């Protein structure tokens, strides 16, 4: 078998098809952009996608775990906002040192996520409702802490925000991008190389079968919501690094973007099938659409939503077609 045969004879696995479709869409959008606008062709446009959306990437990775178990987490946007507000409050008003603030913010996210997970598993409250309570609760906390959006001038935070990591080809990324990529790597390792990851897929495939197999369903279900809460808090910190302010009204609707990214990335909402890498591609597609609309300059911002809606439709129909074959 020559190398050529191997290339022409390649048939992707069915479960990889949605992800490959997303990848080709991403490449297609980039090539289209590069052919229309000269500045688009530079590698920095791609790196900017990562810089602008590193926070959403981390949030969407957490959401991927939840959706893989067949659940949903509506609270992520509010937890992101809570992290930004908490950072601003603790750093600015209280003058706490940066490392302590970071630990507190992450702990709050973890705690909220664990609480919602416990409600869902131990009291059998539907994920939709439990995380909806989380959405209202976290957003309510934000507004109770502060109704303003103070900027953050802590030395550590500004340093992290402004440091540029140079890359070959005159490009650069931010430290947030490195953190986000580390989270993606860790998440992929967790999902594919640990017992926890296998259990996540098993619970999503069929919870009752997983229980009968003697898997640790309780611990896994609570863990994915805890993980999602933690990722949202970390995403909030990355948003702070990006904007250097804490806004109680930021990140409204982030849960929709995260869910859309996960679905466009090929994860099935009923659980049991999907990849973290797909979610990365999903976030990049959302970012690419926004970038294309920004470059065009004549299209209004609402076209982003309409295009994302259209894409969601296309990908869901694609998944149906694959599933029916």
């Amino acid at each position, binding site marked *: 078998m020559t190398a050529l045969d191997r290339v022409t004879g390649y048939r992707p696995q069915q479960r990889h098809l949605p992800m490959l479709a997303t990848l080709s869409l991403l490449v297609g959008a980039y090539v289209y952009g590069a052919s229309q606008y000269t500045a688009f062709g530079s590698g920095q446009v791609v790196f900017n996608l990562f810089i602008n959306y590193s926070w959403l990437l981390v949030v969407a990775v957490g959401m991927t775990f939840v959706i893989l178990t067949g659940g949903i987490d509506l609270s992520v946007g509010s937890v992101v906002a809570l992290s930004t507000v908490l950072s601003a409050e603790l750093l600015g008003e209280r003058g706490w040192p940066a490392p302590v603030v970071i630990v507190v913010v992450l702990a709050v996210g973890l705690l909220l996520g664990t609480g919602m997970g416990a409600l869902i598993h131990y009291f059998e409250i539907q994920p939709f409702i439990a995380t909806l309570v989380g*959405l209202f609760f976290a957003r309510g906390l934000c507004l109770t802490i502060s109704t303003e959006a103070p900027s953050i001038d802590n030395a550590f935070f500004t340093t992290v925000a402004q440091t540029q990591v140079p890359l070959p080809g005159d490009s650069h990324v931010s430290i947030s991008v490195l953190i986000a990529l580390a989270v993606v790597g860790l998440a992929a390792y967790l999902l594919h190389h640990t017992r926890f990851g296998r259990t996540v897929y098993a619970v999503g495939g069929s919870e009752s079968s997983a229980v009968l197999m003697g898997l640790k369903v309780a611990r896994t279900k609570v863990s994915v919501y805890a993980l999602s809460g933690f990722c949202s808090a970390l995403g909030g910190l990355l948003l702070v690094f990006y904007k250097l302010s804490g806004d109680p009204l930021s990140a409204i609707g982030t849960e929709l973007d995260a869910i*859309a990214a996960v*679905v466009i990335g090929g994860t099935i909402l009923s659980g049991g099938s999907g990849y973290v890498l797909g979610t990365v591609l999903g976030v990049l597609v959302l970012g690419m659409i926004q970038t294309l609309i920004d470059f065009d300059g004549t299209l209004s911002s*609402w076209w982003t939503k309409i295009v994302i809606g259209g894409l*969601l439709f296309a990908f869901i129909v694609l998944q149906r077609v694959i599933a029916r074959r």
Partner: protein
Amino acid sequence: MTKHRLFWPVAALLALLLVDLVAKPSFFKIELRDGHLYGSLIDILRLGAPLILVGIGMTLVVATRGIDLSVGSVVAISGALACLHLSGLPDQDAVGGTVAAIGMALGLCLALGAWNGFLVSVLGIQPIIATLILMVAGRGIAQLITDGQIITITSAPFRALGSGYLFLLPVSILIAMAVFVLSTLLVRKSALGLLLEAVGGNPEAGRLSGLRSGRLTWLVYVFAGLCAGVAGLMIAANTPGADANHAGLWIELDAILALTIGGTKLTGGRFSLGGTVIGALLIQTLTTTVYTLGIPDTATLLVKALVVLLVCLVQSPVFRARVRRRRRPPVSPAEPARAVEVSA
């Protein structure tokens, strides 16, 4: 009595009203002013009407084991289209033009509901994702209609939908009640309700017994779209104007909360339209109570989260069983096995 499915929602509503009574007796004062009733309770009815409408539509969707996340966007689209048409009229007070605006908006909402129904029943897409499409794209469409602006209107006949009165009562609550009575009669006095519960309770059994679930599914999404459309008109009439960004924001979540509080399970099957109305009134009373008690309105969401959590916990059979067990220690040694079965 505590066994009745509406006991806990009604108890919660009464408890909330009791808090109001203690904190501010004038809360219950209703007087006749300008030829109609006036007071906090009337305001709750008037402002709660859109949520009741959306909730009724959502309840029937949920009964078929579906969900409609797009209602908030449909609310925005409906208001946007009606206001756009009204603002272009030479005389906004003309009844003909107002009726045309309402007709256009509701027509579009019927089409949007049919689109959701098509995705769910014909393409067989999971309801939560199928309606997510319109939820995301719908706000964009509403902004497209208003061109990103807030369209204000002055039309008196249109504004009556939101703040008008008829027979002493707000027009909006009369419309909501009419829809409630009609839909209750329709689902309880005909086989429709039974069929809906059959589709949601066990779709496969329904199919085997010769039920055409596709058509029913289609019907409930169209109905939910229509309800959301009317609610959108009320919200626009009350503003008065169209705000594509904020009109109906989170109303889908409130509606789902309302029906959950009212005892309808998101897993389909049995449903209670009366419970949804009580749930919606509870949510509206909560909002009004927070204002009445002088709690800063920034805390509204926090209070709402806690109350909803409490109501959901009280309704959760597992939670009730645990509380009971704690109060009367080891009565049945066989029972605790349930909690450990999975965590072991």
